[in-house]
């Protein structure tokens, strides 16, 4: 344990600010991925273990676009769309067949795609770690806030993720399609009686969830190395956040992602030995006390 360095950090505003920003960056990227997972779990009731692999594909597509076109803006648009379309196809051909079956079938089907996609990625991009350079627009002198120094790109990530969070929230609660999606989660039969093509809604939701995974991956690409198998850690962290936040609850997901990021960045200072288990202990406690998650309702 290293309480001293945590206390020392808490004494200086610049260190606090630096850790907060680091935590928020982790949180924002995880939020994007987890919100897609949460949407799919909440509306379709599918445990999509392959969500981490969709994230991985997003990262690789970002890499390829950066290599060929060299423009990060293009990559940021292309990668989510490619992953989204891939998600549409995946749902239409395979995932659709396991709705309403045991969680075991869902685990089996989506896990199979983890294995397949990991190998496909190895074929196309090789097994070595790849990295995406910092986009030229953001190659500027770092910013100082409260004495903490960080790259301009960090601010961009925070802004982009916050916009997406608000965007999803407005989309789900204010627009007609959003309301249809909400109803598809709670009463698909009534929706069908109203003449709405529920299977199509499901496909769209899966596509949207995949798109969010792609967006998260694309934003994270300049910060993290890209390798086959990178989806395994992402999926488990996203699941933790979705479960603690409450299945299908986007705002809950956002709050817990923030908590996760801050626990990480401050925990690693004060309790480097226990930091990894903090979030799982939290998940355990939440599941024992409030199985539906901190902000969720129990799913029957």
């Amino acid at each position: 344990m290293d309480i001293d360095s945590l206390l020392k950090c808490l004494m200086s505003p610049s260190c606090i600010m630096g850790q907060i920003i680091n935590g928020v960056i982790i949180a924002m990227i995880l939020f994007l991925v987890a919100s897609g997972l949460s949407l799919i779990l909440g509306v379709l009731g599918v445990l999509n273990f392959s969500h981490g692999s969709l994230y991985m594909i997003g990262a690789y597509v970002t890499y390829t676009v950066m290599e060929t076109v060299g423009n990060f803006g293009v990559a940021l648009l292309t990668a989510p769309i490619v992953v989204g379309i891939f998600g549409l196809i995946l749902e239409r051909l395979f995932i659709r067949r396991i709705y309403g079956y045991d969680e075991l079938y869902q685990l089996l089907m989506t896990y199979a795609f983890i294995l397949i996609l990991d190998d496909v990625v190895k074929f196309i991009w090789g097994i070595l770690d790849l990295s995406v350079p910092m986009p030229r627009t953001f190659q500027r002198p770092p910013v100082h806030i409260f004495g903490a120094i960080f790259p301009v790109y960090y601010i961009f990530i925070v802004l982009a993720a916050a916009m997406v969070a608000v965007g999803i929230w407005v989309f789900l609660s204010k627009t007609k399609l959003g309301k249809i999606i909400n109803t598809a989660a709670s009463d698909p039969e009534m929706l069908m009686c109203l003449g709405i093509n529920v299977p199509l809604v499901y496909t769209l939701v899966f596509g949207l969830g995949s798109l969010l995974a792609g967006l998260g991956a694309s934003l994270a690409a300049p910060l993290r190395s890209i390798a086959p198998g990178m989806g395994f850690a992402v999926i488990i962290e996203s699941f933790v956040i979705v479960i603690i936040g409450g299945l299908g609850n986007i705002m809950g997901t956002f709050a817990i992602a923030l908590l996760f990021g801050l626990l990480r960045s401050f925990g690693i200072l004060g309790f480097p030995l226990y930091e990894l288990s903090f979030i799982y202990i939290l998940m355990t406690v939440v599941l024992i006390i409030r199985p539906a998650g901190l902000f969720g309702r129990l799913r029957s």
Partner: protein
Amino acid sequence: MKLMGAFRSNSWFFASVGCLIIIPLLFPSLAFINIISEILIMALFAVSLNLLIGYTGLISFGHASFFAVGSYTVGIILQNFSSSLPLAIPLSLLWGMVLSGIIALPIGYFCTRLSSIYFAFLTLAFSQIIYAVIIKWQNLTGGDQGLVGGIPKPPIVLGGLVIDMSSPFALYFLIVVAVCISLLVIKRITDSPFGWILRALRENSARMSFLGIDAKKHQIAVFVISGIFAGLSGGLMALHLSGSYPDHAYWTKSAEPIFMIMLGGLRTFAGPILGALIVTELSVYMCKYTGIWGLGFGSFLVLYLIVIREGILDVFIKWRERRRSAISHKK
């Protein structure tokens, strides 16, 4: 007489055990005993999980917890105290089982308070805590490297009898004996009144509580039993690999026995064993001939789910029952 009856009703089982012992004696091949050891260990792991999934209807996503506890217990005991004990290997395996059972008790207590998907998530959370502990407790577990440097295998001394365990064949026979005895014990448990209560709980736990049966107590009991045998399989795996690794606790390790159960069939005792055979064989041959294990095995799983969807032995039993009823109908 009772013994003879036990032999007759499990004749398939004893014939297979006989083959497993005689074949390596006649044709000693390291490759063969390696793959059979792995199949047997994974079969025990899958059968122990099927006590929860198939018999009791509790879907656990965190069974790797107990596999890892068993594996690390055996590894740590043998690496630190192996020279001072005459029965180091059996004792370490026993400790692996005891510790897995002790850890399974509180985990089972909390998990069985939840149902369906929340049960699965809570088992997953506990297994990730154990994974985190293994990664971070470097002095004891070697961190993300695992217990490297090999696990010593001191001879087993029984009175005047000394068995040299450093030979791979001796280890193979130990694995055969340990797995087969465990399978017999688990079979006996599933055939006991306790085993039938578990099946009844799976079908309708409310009705069982009307009959005055404490559902939760039985679920915790089977959770602990299942954890004990998973711990033994983990301990055997540590001996087989001569090392314990953090991925023994990772969530992917919990997924492996689920594949085996789903492929082999979860309504029969032998289903998970068949599943372990198929999955292990498939991965060995796909690695050997194609080098694209993930793509091949993944596509196989997807096709299987679309076309057959049920475990092989489940399909077989349904087919046999239909045929029987058709025949009796004709008469």
